[in-house]
């Protein structure tokens, strides 16, 4: 599904964010990317959504070489990926319903599909009754669930979550993880960058650990700290 082949990214200020990354992620899998701040987690995500270009190496996504995409192709590529952020990024002046509708309109879904899809995704995240609330009327965990619903609504092949529980308490984080597990069970590939040790240990999924831009560990059903 995703294949990084010897990928390096050196930013303009000569900072080497990731170096010689070789990484395969299978379709329908669930992977954690862990590591300290500055280890390269965010760069890896930015490479995947084509926010930055690799300095060298090759990136394959869904059988397609996305190393060099034209500006026109980048939006098409991004529609295959749902991104979830630590700070939710909901539009404050739109209701929950409108936030999801907006995301669907932007990629060109028609009104009928939008009307049909929104109740489904809202019930999946357990917030059917909040459709007409504004984001600031919701708790942090609820806002993140709306963000997840928004990402899922466009039926992406991959969901990338960048520290999705970073602003949430453990109990709420656990709720979020239950939703992710559910989404993953339905076949969506999930990649989650996190600092949250409890979650990683609890989930027993693949753990890819980065340090100074390099992969120093890659274990199936791993834990946050290397037990060996």
């Amino acid at each position, binding site marked *: 599904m995703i294949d990084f082949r010897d990928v390096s990214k050196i930013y303009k200020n000569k900072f080497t964010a990731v170096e010689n990354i070789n990484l395969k992620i299978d379709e329908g899998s669930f992977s954690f990317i862990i590591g300290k701040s500055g280890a390269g987690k965010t760069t890896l995500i930015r490479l995947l*959504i084509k926010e930055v270009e690799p300095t060298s190496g090759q990136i394959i996504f869904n059988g397609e070489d996305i190393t060099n995409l034209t*500006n*026109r192709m980048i*939006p*098409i*590529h*991004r*529609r295959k*990926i749902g*991104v979830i952020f630590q700070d939710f*990024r909901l*539009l404050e002046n739109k209701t929950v319903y409108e936030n999801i509708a907006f*995301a669907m*309109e*932007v*990629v*060109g*879904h*028609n*009104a009928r599909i939008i009307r049909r899809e929104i109740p489904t995704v809202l019930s999946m995240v357990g917030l059917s009754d909040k459709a007409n609330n504004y984001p600031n009327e919701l708790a942090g965990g609820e806002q993140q669930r709306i963000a997840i619903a928004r990402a899922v609504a*466009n039926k992406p092949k991959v969901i990338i979550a960048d520290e999705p529980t970073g602003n949430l308490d453990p109990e709420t984080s656990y709720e979020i993880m239950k939703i992710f597990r559910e989404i993953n069970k339905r076949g969506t590939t999930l990649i989650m960058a996190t600092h949250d040790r409890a979650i990683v240990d609890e989930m027993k999924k693949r753990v890819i650990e980065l340090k100074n831009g390099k992969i120093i560990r890659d274990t199936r059903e791993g834990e946050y700290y290397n037990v060996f």
Partner: protein
Amino acid sequence: MFSRILKNTFKQGFQGILRNRTMSLASIGSVASVLIILGMILLLILNINTLTLTAQEKFDEIYVYLEDDIGDQRIEEIGNDIKSMDGVLSVVYQSKDYALNKMKEDWGEDGDLLDGFTENPLPNTYVIQLEDITYSEEVLVSIENIYGIEEIKYYKEAIDMLINTSNYVQIIGTALIVVLLLISIFIIQNTIKITVASRRTEIRLMQYIGASNGYVRGPFILEGLLLGLLGSIIATIVVLNAYDYLVGYGNQKLAPLLSFNFIPATSISTDILIIFVTIGIGIGILGSIVSLKKFLNV
């Protein structure tokens, strides 16, 4: 889907204009000013060119004014002398009476003013048509040596001056217009920047979700286009009305003296409208694109 994208584009585009009214007004004003100045220069050049053409047609002749106290015989001799010169195509004699009548005709209603003269002040005249403009120097020198000639009028210098003026106006005008165009593109670019800034979060989100570049750009381009369009409409109205007034005034006061009519406003109004709207919209769209490239990277 297409109609909804269009609706979104228009809604956001108009909202952009209303959201920062001061900058929008400044943009519209700058586009209008550029076009008004452009219009002034354009109309000036057009009229000078027409004047030059009329002048060339009318005055590509040498007027030889004869002294009043020479007899008919001398007049005829002078005529024959001129006819025999190299490069002279034709020589036509105009008596002073003929000249006065012709002037009365040319002045039309104002011709009555000439009735006040008790004595005809106009001279007897030979009008010389040259085979070619290159003979002018030669012929002029020869005529100067003939006895009984009061004055020689030749308009080549005046025509050259007109052509020179027209060239200067064109050069300075073009430079001025280029500078003004750049300024108004810059102002529009800043106006759009404000809209971009106020919608930054939304736009970043749209980009992450995978909105096409066109979908993101559309409203901003439309905003620029509308600013340019409004500016050009204002400029068209101002320029055409001002020009119409000036032409009315000019034709009344100046035209009889110059024997020249200004280009009427009605005959150029469509051209001006098309030129202005095209340039106005061009400035607007260009300003938006520059702004988007700079601040949005799309």
